[in-house]
């Protein structure tokens, strides 16, 4: 029986017990998760493990953004989807699996391609955003909207056999543009379609994103803000890199921002989400 008034039911306490006894979570932390709303942008290789662990952990509301259907070539890494979801919309597949994992979580579909005209209105409904996308254009869009709306952004990326994770716009910390002020020339960018990616590497990255989201929502502290977590499981290399602070001259989060609403990101990056980038060499 509960002696402290709480919004958690007994079945919930039983379910989350093993994580609630971890220092930094506890009953207040679990309640923090329950009242939080997290937006997962992209239900591919990073969105699948991150949304799974966040649903399993009892985050109250998960928003799920994608506009794609499940393909056989996704299955080696996009672990919410199974064979019978081939051809099914990724949001529908994700909702089905996440609901089966945890009926207590509210799952909000956003079956759209996030773009400059819808991003602000979607993101503003949430407390925290996970960037689980696969192209630079969308990453700049998400970053700018998070800065404009004062939302914390936990960003992951993976390619071939390595991954990178950081938390942007956290309590005065740097944003994505502070670290990457100029987008790379699309001529020099590899992407998953060309370069491939190992499933478990995306599992590491998505899980790291989920761990950070839980920490922020449960304990009001960040582990990765101001750091770049680098994992290269194939080479047995792992590092936590110290990053620069927020740039005072950053065009979106600096002292005199010039970006005050979403811009034309396709033009800015020199490419859309077209995955047919040419190789670096």
């Amino acid at each position, binding site marked *: 029986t509960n002696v402290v008034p709480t919004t958690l039911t007994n079945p919930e306490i039983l379910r989350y017990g093993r994580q609630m006894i971890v220092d930094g979570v506890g009953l207040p932390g679990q309640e923090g998760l329950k009242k939080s709303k997290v937006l997962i942008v*992209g239900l*591919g*290789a*990073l*969105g699948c493990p991150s949304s799974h662990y966040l649903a399993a952990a009892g985050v109250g509301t998960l928003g799920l953004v994608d506009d794609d259907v499940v393909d056989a070539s996704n299955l080696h890494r996009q672990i919410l989807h199974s064979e019978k979801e081939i051809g099914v919309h990724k949001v529908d597949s994700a909702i089905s699996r996440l609901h089966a994992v945890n009926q207590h979580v509210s799952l909000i579909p956003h079956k759209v391609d996030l773009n400059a005209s819808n991003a602000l209105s979607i993101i503003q409904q949430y407390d925290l955003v996970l*960037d*689980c*996308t*696969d*192209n*630079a254009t969308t*990453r700049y869009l998400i970053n700018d909207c998070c800065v404009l709306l004062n939302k914390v952004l936990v960003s*992951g*990326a*993976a*390619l*071939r056999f*390595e*991954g*990178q994770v950081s938390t942007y716009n956290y309590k005065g910390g740097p944003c994505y543009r502070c*670290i*990457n*002020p*100029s*987008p*790379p*020339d699309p001529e*020099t*960018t*590899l*992407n*998953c379609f060309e*370069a491939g*990616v190992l499933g478990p590497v*995306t599992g590491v*990255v998505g899980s790291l994103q989920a761990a950070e989201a839980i920490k922020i929502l449960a304990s009001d502290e960040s582990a990765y803000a101001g750091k*770049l977590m*680098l994992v*290269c499981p194939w*080479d047995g*290399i792992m*590092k*936590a*890199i*110290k*990053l*620069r602070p927020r740039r005072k001259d950053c065009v979106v989060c600096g002292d005199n921002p010039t970006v005050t609403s979403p811009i034309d990101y396709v033009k800015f990056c020199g490419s859309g989400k077209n995955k047919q980038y040419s190789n*670096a*060499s």
Partner: protein
Amino acid sequence: MNITIELAGGAELLFGNQRKHEVTLPESDKQWTMATLLPWIRDNLLQERGELFMQGKSVRPGILVLVNDADWELAGELDYVIENKDNIMFISTLHGG
């Protein structure tokens, strides 16, 4: 002076797919700084077109430079004076997911 050059995130593809290079810099009257090291790397280690690594005096957008596991911005970027046994890392920012 001996330094280690590391590549990650795909940047290694510009350097013969070799992620770690142990390098001995030639003797010089002037100190080695990042400003002089970058063109040296371009001219001695790079195996692709120069503009895939550098743009003007710095690295091209999309490459993050680290000095001893910290953002080079914290070390003074191009002005940083290289020290013996330094680890200089070039990481391509990943976008995939």
